[in-house]
């Protein structure tokens, strides 16, 4: 079926089976390979993107449900020469190891902070459920805290 939606601010149309998960449309039809595949069952978060501003796991969202939606991927989070504060914090805290989970991690964190700029430790733990096999969690927490209002920016 043909679907029209907005991806990273651009109107796009794709033709794909109605049940094709958004993840594969992004990666294969639109060439946006920054969004990763980890499990295919909504269990790891590697495929996290924003749909209408909310974090979703693209591996389980059928493309048929997205007519007219607005989607943001890691490639569209910020211009490359003006990174998003979360990306800046991620570099400052040297968060990524292999980096494979980090597109999803950054999309999940940026969605959380957009609604709750100063989350408590409990809120972070409850909201950021992405898996990272390299074990970067301590730095993810540190980077999120460095972004809290009054924390002195991302240089901590």
């Amino acid at each position, binding site marked *: 079926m043909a679907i029209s939606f907005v991806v990273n601010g651009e109107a796009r149309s794709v033709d794909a089976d109605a049940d094709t998960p958004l993840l*594969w449309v992004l990666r294969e039809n639109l060439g946006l390979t920054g969004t990763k595949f980890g499990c295919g*069952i909504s269990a790891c978060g590697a495929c996290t993107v924003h749909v209408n501003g909310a974090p979703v796991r693209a591996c389980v969202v059928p493309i048929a449900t997205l007519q007219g939606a607005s989607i943001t991927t890691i490639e569209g989070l910020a211009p490359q020469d003006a990174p998003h504060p979360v990306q800046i914090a991620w570099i400052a805290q*040297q968060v990524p*190891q292999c980096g494979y989970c980090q597109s999803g991690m950054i999309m999940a964190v940026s969605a959380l902070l957009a609604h709750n700029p100063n989350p408590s430790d409990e809120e972070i733990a409850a909201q950021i459920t992405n898996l990272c096999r390299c*074990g970067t969690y301590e*730095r993810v927490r540190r980077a999120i805290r460095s972004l809290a209002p009054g924390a002195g920016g991302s240089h901590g």
Partner: protein
Amino acid sequence: MGKWTRRALLSVGGVVGGGLVLGISEIAFAPNRLGILPPPSGDGAMLTVWLRITPEDAVTVLVPHCEMGQGVHTALAMMAAEELDAEWSQVHVQEAPAEPAFANAHVLRAFLPLEIPPLLGRGFDYATFKVAQWVGLQVTGGSSSVRGTGHHGMQVAGAAARAMLIQAAAVRWQVPAEQCIARRSRVLHEPSGHAASFGELADEASRLAPPVHPAFKSPSQYRIRGTSVQRVDIPAKVNGTARYGLDVVLPGMLYATVRAAPVFGGKLAAVETAAVEAMPGVKSVVKLEEAVAVVADGYWRALKASRALQPQFTDGGHGEVDSAAIFAAQAEALSGQSFGKAGKEGAGAASLEHAARQVEAEYRVPYLAHATMEPMNATAHIVDGRCEVWAGTQDPLSARKVAAKAAGIAPDKVTFHNQPLGGGFGRRLPGTFDYIEQAVKIAKAIAPTPVKLIWSREEDLQHDYYRAAFVARFQAGLDAEGRPQTWVSHFNGASEALAARPPYQFKDLELRTTDVHAHVREGSWRSVAFSQQGFFIESFMDELAHAAQQDPVGYRLAALGHAPRHRAVLEKAAQLAGWGTPLPAGQGRGVALVEAFGTIVAEVARVEITADRQIKVHQVTAVVDSGEVVNPDTAAAQIEGGIVFGLTAALYGQITIDKGRVQQSNFHDYPLLKLADSPRVTVEFIRSGAPLGGMGEPGVPPIAPAVANAIFAVTGRRLRELPLQANLLSGKS
């Protein structure tokens, strides 16, 4: 690239763009350095390191190791740049292509001497080289990159290039070379005020003979090493531009996925393909020996079609095996009278009967999957008798050989493009390249169309090369004061001896091995045998301390004897963790000390057992002595990551076998630690100046015993089997 010579270092002039290009030949370098080896014969020498300085002042270091998040590209470049005295912002890193010229025999040098007596060590270089040449190693594993390639290759290349640049400047200015110094990519002659950049001198330097014994800086002169420079690979990993194997795109490429025989050793017997071949987008169903692949115009269509197949597989006679039978077979072997000996000191096990007190225990650990976040995948293209492959591996050279064999062509007809790895942990080491073999065979079947093979997570978890399930028995003899005198262990897996020797002193010791393996595929898993033996040894040592009614830290310190590095690490960890200070009800501390890959790590875990018997690890304090720390922040990240990796295994990790096949299939039944369960981690380094140890793996082994020991401190229950959470709830011990 110039003619090979038998020199240790090669300077290659006349390259496109000019400048200085310097290479180090391992075979020639080793004899010059050690002065004992015969010169190499023929043109087969291997270069491990290339360094290039362009007229524009750019310094490029070619690194023969893959980047899997351990920061190795950065650390190795730091070692070269330090000796070169380069301006760090002008240093670039590139991964060496998968060609034999880049094989890294230094890895073996760093890894193997651990196992050989020092006297043999000198003669060992040559054997090491032979082995490496023969295997064609370009491997990243064993925490060896910085220790091997860095120490023997990068450092020498940097120092030699600096000497040549200084010499070139001295000739140009007609001044003595000893009066010239290199600083931040410039050579200066302070008495005359002359100065020139490396780039300005590079062409002249390239015409000089490289020094065979370049002088190294003393550590007190280090300006780059020992600082936390930012990793060069990180920016691309925060904006989606890093290209992993999964992200490779070729024009006209198709997508494939496989279903392999669920029972290891099984073969494809029959599969009806007509209905699936008629599904939308499906291009082909390819029958392989052990699997069936579906090729389609997209992964989703390939996956749906592969699920619609009803392939029949044989089971190789293993269709009734389960985990209980596998453990039982090992336990039975341990009870038998025939075993190998991996080590004996003093009177060995015979002295047990004289002990004032004996302690015995049996431990076991299950199979574990690597579960790299990036599932196995490879892209292959066969056309005109040549094959190109794109995949992330820890050893592109041997992956290239696998691809050549699968394609039925010579290795030099294969170009292997190694990609950044979405996790390695041992899953992408030699001997485990089934996904590459499959991709090439599929590409051959549909040639000349390129194909990307992607395994589903289910396929990935059920066709791993697993960390071995393992039963071990321990006996100790204590004297009247409770001091350990005799240590006897009997474990499965003959190659595990190195990890089985505790760091403590015993009058008598015996290590016994049996070698019983099921049909389940086994492989290296981050920290290899140290992950199992670390848990066993440090848990049993805790048992001995409690049997002697002594404090676990004090007991270990007393048993260490003269081992100043180990003592310092343990004492510091205890002190930083507040060992012995009061804790809230329901909480306890556990400690463990393991040396692996030349690095000594002590970890103290503070653990709570909640009212519903959930294990909550609040804090881990790690103290690490790796001799030197090349990049403290990256090193700390490796220890932090190792603790999380080890904690997943300690708390939840288990692959179980039923009807010959793996029961777990995805992260719902093979859970990984999440941020919510991830402890606060403090990492502290001791810079003892000992030879540089590894960093990628040594953080893993101590965490399971530290947590198990803490659980004992809280509950009085000794958990002798992993994973701890399930065993705590089941009441087994």
